[in-house]
């Protein structure tokens, strides 16, 4: 979906979230803990929220939120983020975006 791709390409580290989603909040906190300030887009506050949700599901995100994009590429939902973090790969992926305000 255009909207999704546009946002993903504009923001280095992007999390699609819902304001009521606590798992999204958890992922956000994890990023914070490793020194990253992701751009969090609350789709429940977006008029095109439903379309974004469908697009994310089509892309394979089974949350559909949280949906994490790094450098324009879809990384995945909570499972993928956690696995990457445990293996040390998440920090590697995020290195170029660390300490950027």
């Amino acid at each position, binding site marked *: 979906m255009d909207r999704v791709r546009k946002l993903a390409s504009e923001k280095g580290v992007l999390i699609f979230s819902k304001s*009521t989603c*606590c798992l999204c909040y*958890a992922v956000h*906190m*994890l990023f914070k803990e*490793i020194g990253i300030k992701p751009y969090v887009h609350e789709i429940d506050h977006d008029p095109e929220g439903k379309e974004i949700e469908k697009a994310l599901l089509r892309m394979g995100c089974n949350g559909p939120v949280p949906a994490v994009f790094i450098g324009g590429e879809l990384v995945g939902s909570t*499972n993928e983020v956690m*696995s990457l973090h445990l293996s040390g790969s998440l920090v590697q992926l995020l290195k170029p975006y660390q300490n950027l305000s």
Partner: protein
Amino acid sequence: MNSTSTQFVPSRRMGIYEMVGVSGNFKENDYLDSSPSMIFEDTSDGTVGPSNKYDHVARKPADKVLRRLAQNREAARKSRLRKKAYVQKLESSKLRLIELTQELQRARRQGLYKGGELDYGLQGYSGITSPGIATFETGYGQWVEEQNRQVVELRKALQSSNGVTELQFFVNSGMRHYLDLFNMKAAAAKADVFYLMSGMWKTSAERYFSWIGGFRPSELLKVLIPHLEPLSDEQRWEVNNLRQSCQQAEDALSQGMDKLHQIIAETVCDGLLDEGNYLPQLAAAMEKLEPLVRFVNQADHLRRETLQLISRILDIHQAARGLLALGEYFQRLRALSSLWASRPREPA
């Protein structure tokens, strides 16, 4: 006043007779054979003394009356003794019941029955409301038994010098065994996530260490790591990184849980003291509780990933020692729970 007390005297006044009877110094025969003047009765001033108040009852032979009275008193005394014996029996039955209940709990904890202790304080004995949970309890009991068997095998394999193939076999079965548990838990989370989160299926000491429906993986790593030595520098670096990432992931999930906790509390409390029914709030709360399943699954995912990652860092001997350490740790916690439950306590 005792003017016409030809009837049987009330129980309070029999207290003296009871005491005398129990002390054993006063023989039964003394009653029946005594002459009128030797009958002891409570006089109006409360003292015991001889009485001659039957003098005016002339219709029946005095000794027949006296005999009947004595027999009545005797019957009363026996009745009281029977009652006392019955109460004592009840008391000891109660103690026996408590004892049996504790034994049952201990046996269940050891997985001899369904496995997992039911906390009577929560839902009472048949608190299992869903067949999915009943299945889980049975499965978990068997899981614990199997784990105990594996611990024994692993220990033997480590002590023997039978070589790597045998060790590999046991490490593989050990890993698969944990994966089985995660699969069982996933099904149970769908059936009743509250049940899983409560840790009711575990023993009390294990429950004490509970975090989102199971153990904290970073804590388990702390248990394992000393037994993995000697570690190469690279291994040490990887293991420490894993421990740190694990800790961070746990913290993030904990914060998410805290937020959910707050949201549920607010939803339930919305509109307290307003008139009208609270079903809309409860319906909203039910909807907001659904993510709990995701959290439990996420926590288990973390446990599974941590286990798999560490097994890839270690060589076969280290992995075997790690699994053994883990198994023994759980056994100790279960044993602690049993000991705790059977510790001597002050009588209620």
